[in-house]
């Protein structure tokens, strides 16, 4: 079997992976990036509104206020040491991107343009802050292309269109690389590395109605589960309030940041009832629930009453052209309306996974082991949406995702350099390290009666129905039973196409295996959490329950076990932000 060897390996070519790769590529170590798509096709490219950092370019600002908003936005489930680290590092991380050439929009004085975003305040919960740095409404595109360009300059080795299959580990638990497959040739490949970073992004494609790219199938999460490692806080999925109705494509929160607002069928600005102070710029979970309630109670718009309107024509043609050109484009193409004239029909759409692979501040993957509940898995790192560090807690604030990628991508890259210095000699790979992985690949050469596409569709509908905005024990358990059936069907699935070259049907089958693991983790974790917090809304347990549930869940595949670990309420240097009622 073909083998390639590197010092460091990055799995995933989105913002987090490329930021970490850049840190390593600037050193003398050999770094490779494995990506199942050409890197600029990664989902970071779809991020619209911006990246949040307290630069104070428009208005007074301090990173401490950003930290407060992030803790509150996450309904106190975020770890305050990680949140302090992110908010403190934010400004320098953004300036660094600017130095790399990211084409930020500019203010008249030449500084980076910033816009208001949801959940962002001044003075610890006071007036609206203006904190989110933007390149028009294409910030993710600008960020991803800039990082890719920097990596070309620094000669990062890219394995484009290679699909990572499984982690390689030795008996002591060290991660020594991955098994992968060239999508173009279908050939398996061993990539050995002294240290490996997972930056495989989210898994939003587990829901029927999703803002996510089709490639967001939780591949890194599947790899981690198969390696016997846990996933954290998987019950927390963000439903973005404003996806284009019936399509799912995102209408950025920046629309509301620039002054757009939501209307029900009576033309009422209903957010005034749900969040009297912040209105349309309340936390995303708050706004998504409000829309879901308006629709459920018969105040939705359109012939079926299944969406609400977002109005922005009053912003004027000029603001829309300068600040929201991509949104206008999307609305015209996918909703058939020009937002400069008419409101856009929107409804909540699955958007972001707050949970993921548990890590510490340095991006090291941690798991309960002999010496404690959070012991690093040697050599293994995770960053970005696939990771749970946890800065987003129970609900992520807009603009904090790109920031998470950059801050922790950089931190993990730096720590991997230290790890390489401390572990200068490669460990030898056990002879059978790739066996299970190759068997899993070969399994798809066998015929089967069930079709992958049909199971995928059923899985997404199941999750939409049983793990959506509002949940109950009965609904979740029914979902889990249906999932058991689907897993039974998956065991009998086979491909019609067993060719080697660019067999995307095979890739979709492997992706489905990963999504199944994500779905199970989500349902089991959601059943266990008998409270409502952030994006996890239990109709049978409508209140937040700090006494019993101010803690993270840790899901393990073996026996569907859910353990808990405490939330770190102690920041690095500042005072703890004590839990209180979350109102906007």
């Amino acid at each position, binding site marked *: 079997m073909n083998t390639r060897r590197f010092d460091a390996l990055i799995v995933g070519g989105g913002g987090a992976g490329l930021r970490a790769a850049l840190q390593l590529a600037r050193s003398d170590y050999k770094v490779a990036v494995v990506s199942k*798509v*050409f890197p*600029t*096709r*990664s*989902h970071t*490219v*779809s991020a619209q509104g911006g990246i949040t950092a307290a*630069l104070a370019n428009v208005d007074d600002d301090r990173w401490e206020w950003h930290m407060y908003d992030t803790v509150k936005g996450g309904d106190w489930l975020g770890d305050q040491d990680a949140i302090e680290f992110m908010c403190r590092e934010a400004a320098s991380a*953004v*300036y660094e991107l*600017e*130095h*790399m*050439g990211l*084409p*930020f*929009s*500019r*203010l*008249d*004085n*030449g*500084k*980076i343009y910033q816009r208001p975003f949801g959940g962002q305040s001044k003075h610890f919960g006071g007036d609206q802050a203006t904190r989110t740095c933007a*390149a028009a409404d*294409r910030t993710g*595109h*600008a960020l991803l*292309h*800039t990082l890719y*360009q*920097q990596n*070309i*300059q620094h000669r990062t080795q890219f394995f484009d269109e290679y699909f990572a299959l499984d982690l390689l580990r030795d008996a002591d638990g060290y991660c020594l690389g991955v098994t992968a497959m060239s999508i*173009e040739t279908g050939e398996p490949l061993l990539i050995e590395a002294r240290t490996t970073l997972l930056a495989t992004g989210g898994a939003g494609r587990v829901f029927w109605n999703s803002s996510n*790219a*089709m*490639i967001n199938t939780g591949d890194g999460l599947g790899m981690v589960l198969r390696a016997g490692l846990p996933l954290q806080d998987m019950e927390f999925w963000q439903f973005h309030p404003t996806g284009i109705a*019936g*399509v799912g*494509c995102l209408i950025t929160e920046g629309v509301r940041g620039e002054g757009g607002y939501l209307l029900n069928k009576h033309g009422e600005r209903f957010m005034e009832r749900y969040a009297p102070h912040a209105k349309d710029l309340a936390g995303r979970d708050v706004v998504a629930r409000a829309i879901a309630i308006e629709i459920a109670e018969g105040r939705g718009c359109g012939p079926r009453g299944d969406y609400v309107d977002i109005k922005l024509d009053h912003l004027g043609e000029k603001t829309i052209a300068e600040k929201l050109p*991509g949104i206008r*484009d*999307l609305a015209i*193409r*996918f909703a*058939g309306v020009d937002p400069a004239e008419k409101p856009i029909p929107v409804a909540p759409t699955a958007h972001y996974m707050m949970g993921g692979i548990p890590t510490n501040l340095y991006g090291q993957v941690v798991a309960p082991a002999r010496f404690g509940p959070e012991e690093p898995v040697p050599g293994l790192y995770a960053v970005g949406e696939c990771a749970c560090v946890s800065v987003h807690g129970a609900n992520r604030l807009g603009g904090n995702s790109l920031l998470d990628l950059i801050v922790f991508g950089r931190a993990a890259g730096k720590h991997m350099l230290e790890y390489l210095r401390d572990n200068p000699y490669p460990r030898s790979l056990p002879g059978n390290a790739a066996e299970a992985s190759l068997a899993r690949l070969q399994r798809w050469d066998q015929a089967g009666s069930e*079709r992958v*596409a049909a199971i995928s569709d059923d899985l997404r509908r199941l999750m939409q129905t049983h793990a959506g905005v509002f949940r109950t024990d009965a609904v979740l358990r029914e979902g889990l039973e249906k999932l058991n059936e689907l897993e039974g069907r998956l065991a009998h699935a086979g*491909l*019609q*196409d067993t*060719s080697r*070259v*660019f*067999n*995307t*049907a095979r890739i*979709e089958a492997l992706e489905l295996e990963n999504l199944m693991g994500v779905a199970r983790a989500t349902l089991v974790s959601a059943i266990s959490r008998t409270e409502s917090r952030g994006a996890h809304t239990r109709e049978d347990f409508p209140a937040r329950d700090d006494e019993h549930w101010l803690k993270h869940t840790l899901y393990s595949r073996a026996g569907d076990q859910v353990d808990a670990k405490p939330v770190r309420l102690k920041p690095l240097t500042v005072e703890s932000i004590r839990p209180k009622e979350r109102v906007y």
Partner: protein
Amino acid sequence: MKFRLYRYSPESGEKPHMQDVELDIDPVGKMLLDALLAIKAQDETLSLRRSCREGVCGSDAVNVNGKNRLACITPLGELKEPIEVRPLPGLPVIRDLIVDMEPFYRQYRSIKPWLINDGPEPEVERLQSPEDRALLDGAYECILCACCTTACPSFWWNPDKFVGPAGLLQAYRFIADSRDEATSARLDNVEDPYRLYRCHGIMNCVDACPKGLNPTEAIGRIKSLLVKRRV
């Protein structure tokens, strides 16, 4: 609806051929990508690239009824039947609708697509006026889908020598950036009978760009900068 799809699988031993496919689909509100995925759900041997399905990642560029377009933002209802879908022209076909993009990426890399500024870095951002920033509009938005470059006859003849419209648009994006200090070297890099001057202003690129960008105009600006430099 009726489709004619380009099919080629190197393992089958068959020559490339067009396949007629009928699909029961209501075109209202649907894009070509929806139809291609519905066809793939019936016959999983059909291979194509796709990712964002909203026109920002640049994966699913194909040739539709003779024009290069992104399948995900091409309204199905606007297309004349039978809808003929082929891989992008001018690049080697790997399988079905999937081409080898490497010649395109190689030209992109050749223009050194990264900001060059060796000055000391300030602790904060470098300043740039809104007017200077506006010069990047129409250039930085490129998604590297290759619709333009593979619509260009000059690229078809000289894919190894002519940078092509996408690469030249990116060259201009850095030349136009007030923060970039390598304008002279960038102009040297393209001042060549093939690399730049194979562009004869045919303007297929402008017609093909799904993001409404204008590479011909950017190429014109590079050419006029070169003229100015000479006098």
